[in-house]
């Protein structure tokens, strides 16, 4: 077991492998009442196929990663979450584009609950009846989202940005693809992707590290499988599909969402990707954040309200930035945002702002360490790249003003798309 102390944050991390296969990260959090445990696999909504036992690529219906996430809780037709609950653990799961995570937080019986989680994760037992019953539940989940115009605006934007990349598809799939999922496809995808070698177990809380380390050595892991992960090559051009689209929705306020694909020109190492993400975040904060001149101008011009926000997504497989707001005048806001995006204004005189934003990054990072959910999420995300959450702040501190200015080059007008949502004529 390797132990790393982070005295600047008063935190300690331990890492080891169970049977040289499953990576485990333990983080000590003295005085916390709950222990937070997550187990992640790099199967996300982007993965739409696998290699079968003969090495042939097989495609599966969209939404299968999310469907699996729902059905893992089933053991021979029985929902296993009750067993967790009886031992003071609340279990849940979520699917992202690049991974699926199962988690629980418990106040007792830590080892028993971890053992149950690992068994559930690696050894589910699907039934035909259970799979069929789940379809209606997931269709209702999709229906719930489809009643949210901003959800539709976001997905319309991704479809306007991406030609071929599977990020354009809803994590839940479509009504048709959900209905097409069956037990054999679930089993195949599970076998291909839920492998100890690709997964990571994260445990955070106030517990006896040495005792847990010893207990975890006894965990039984599944035998290696013949199925393998597979992803069709994606040849995504930098240009967007469509520059602008307007939706007529049952809303009372117009809104605008702009997206722009990020092109890093060459593949980045995990370290470079984090540095790029942080430098880019600082750049966007300086130019579009709430302490920027531009934000003040947008407010003065009454082009935005307090729903204004920006979001940066950067993974190995894709990268984009979103900016949006409710607005009485989406066309004018569009013109203003695009002009500001494409005409860099950062000057050397902004160095004080840069130093302030770095302070703000440090503060928000340290305070976020109080959230076990955040620490677990980031730890398992970074673990897939062999980095730890505490490395992030060191990378942030190494960023120079020049690194930030260099981010200007990432905006290309052709990579931009936008969606305006306008009230339908008969909206209430």
């Amino acid at each position, binding site marked *: 077991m390797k132990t790393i102390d982070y005295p600047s944050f008063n935190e300690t991390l331990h890492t080891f492998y169970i049977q040289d296969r499953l990576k485990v990260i333990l983080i000590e959090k003295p005085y916390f009442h709950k222990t937070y445990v997550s187990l992640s696999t790099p199967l996300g909504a982007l993965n739409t196929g696998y290699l079968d036992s003969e090495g042939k690529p097989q495609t599966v219906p969209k939404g299968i990663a999310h469907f699996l996430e729902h059905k893992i809780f089933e053991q021979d037709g029985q929902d296993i979450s009750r067993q967790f609950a009886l031992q003071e653990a609340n279990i849940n799961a979520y699917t992202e584009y690049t991974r699926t995570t199962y988690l629980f937080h418990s106040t007792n019986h830590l080892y028993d609950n971890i053992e149950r989680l690992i068994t559930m994760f690696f050894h589910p037992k699907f039934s035909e009846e259970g799979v069929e019953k789940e379809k209606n539940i997931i269709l209702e989940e999709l229906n719930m989202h489809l009643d949210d115009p901003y959800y539709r605006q976001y997905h319309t934007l991704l479809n306007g940005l991406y030609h071929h990349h599977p990020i354009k598809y809803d994590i839940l799939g479509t009504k048709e693809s959900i209905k097409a999922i069956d037990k054999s496809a679930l089993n195949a995808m599970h076998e291909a992707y839920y492998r100890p070698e690709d997964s990571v177990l994260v445990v955070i809380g106030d517990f006896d590290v040495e005792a847990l380390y010893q207990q975890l050595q006894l965990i039984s892991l599944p035998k290696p499988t013949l199925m393998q992960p597979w992803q069709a090559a994606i040849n995504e051009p930098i240009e967007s599909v469509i520059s602008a689209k307007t939706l007529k929705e049952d809303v009372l306020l117009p809104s605008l969402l702009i997206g722009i694909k990020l092109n890093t020109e060459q593949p980045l190492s995990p370290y470079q990707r984090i540095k790029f993400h942080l430098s880019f975040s600082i750049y966007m904060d300086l130019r579009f954040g709430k302490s920027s001149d531009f934000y003040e101008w947008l407010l003065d011009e009454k082009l935005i309200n*307090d729903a204004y926000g920006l979001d940066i997504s950067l993974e190995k497989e894709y990268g984009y930035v979103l900016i949006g707001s409710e607005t009485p005048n989406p066309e004018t806001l569009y013109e203003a945002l695009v002009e500001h995006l494409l005409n860099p204004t950062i000057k050397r005189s902004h160095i004080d702002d840069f130093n302030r934003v770095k302070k703000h990054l440090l503060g928000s990072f340290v305070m976020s360490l109080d959230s076990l959910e955040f620490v677990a999420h980031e730890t398992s995300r970074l673990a897939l790249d062999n980095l730890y959450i505490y490395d992030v702040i060191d990378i942030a501190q190494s960023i120079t003003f020049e690194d930030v200015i260099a981010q200007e080059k990432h905006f290309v007008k052709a990579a931009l798309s936008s969606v305006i949502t306008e009230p339908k004529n008969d909206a209430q």
Partner: protein
Amino acid sequence: MQLTTYQHNHTVYQYITSKQFKSRVLTIRFLSDLNNVNPTERHIMINMLKAKNAKTKTRKAQSKHLESLYDSMLYTHASKLGTQHVLQITFLFIDDTYTIEKNLLNEVLYFLKTTLYEPLFDQQSLDEEKQFLKDYFKAEYTNKTRYAQKQYIKHLYKDYPYKTHALGDEQKIDQITLDDITKCYDEMMQESRIFISFLSNNDPKRIHPLISNTINLNSVNDSFTPLIKYNFKPLDTVKETLDVSQNRLFMTLKSDVYMKDKNYFTMLVFNAMLGEGSDSLLFKTIREDASLAYYVYSSYSPFTGLVTMTCGMHSDNVEQGKILMLDVVNRLKSGDFTEEDLELAKTHLLTNIKQGYDHPISLSLKALRYALFDIPFEEETLIHELETVTKESVLKLASDIRLIFTYELGGAHENH
């Protein structure tokens, strides 16, 4: 973790001492009778207070200042708590063990003092906040789950004071003037019941003089009733039509058990068994067994004694859903549940209670509930109260529970 309470100028100061967190949280709450205030003005005023002040005269300057304090966060919030309308100012900041500059608490207190005593109420800020609030009300319609919830509340409480929206009334926004804001501010500062909490690892004895002398607020000293019991009458079913993918259904149960009642903890267990979480009977029956819905749950309001069961399902399934939901209630009333169901509900609540001590911001609400309603702050006392709940006590309580209202939104779709 320890709670220490002092009073200074009738203001209640609650110090939550813990070594657990890297954040510090200072919360100031101004309470006034819901019946005697204009929530619209109060919501706008507290947000203007947050936006800028005499020293940081623009929103931009305010944001820059907060960023320079290591991303300190200033939140303002208006809410309802029993008979009270609550204006809340929360300041979240980093423990200066982790920063180069060390006197962060002094800087924060100075900033809070400026925020409280040197407001900058100008026309621009008023116009912006009025527009934000108008947009907020309009945006409630965008998300149909949120809109259904709003409509449900409107119909359910239409004859009761609880119908007041914590953020006020959309129709009253345009009438508000700067004079109204100034008057509203003066009333908040001079006529409120004030509760302050501070979460840190500092010794309360040492920091209380600094905090109380800096903030130095005078609270009114009166006895007040934070909770009033209403005799909610049964209402006619309401169904509103809207073109949605999924109908939203709400069913209201009346319990007559309120926060300070002796069977309050039994009521918590009843609700947990009914529909709180994925191990509840509603979840198992409606979602897992019948596959009718993605979400279904119940929530208990200790300020009204009402329990709301809610779910989203296709219009074709709503009638079956209603029958099954009432079946679950009847199962609880007739004792058709196992000791394991009861144990599961208690364990669920016990886990939630323990985990509630892990969230810096929720701790100040725990402290306020202790001050107002005598709900114990200590984990052990709460757990002991839960352990005393038996199947017999749940059955006795359940026998008085009855359905008083059903609300549904949707119904226009035919295709699945």
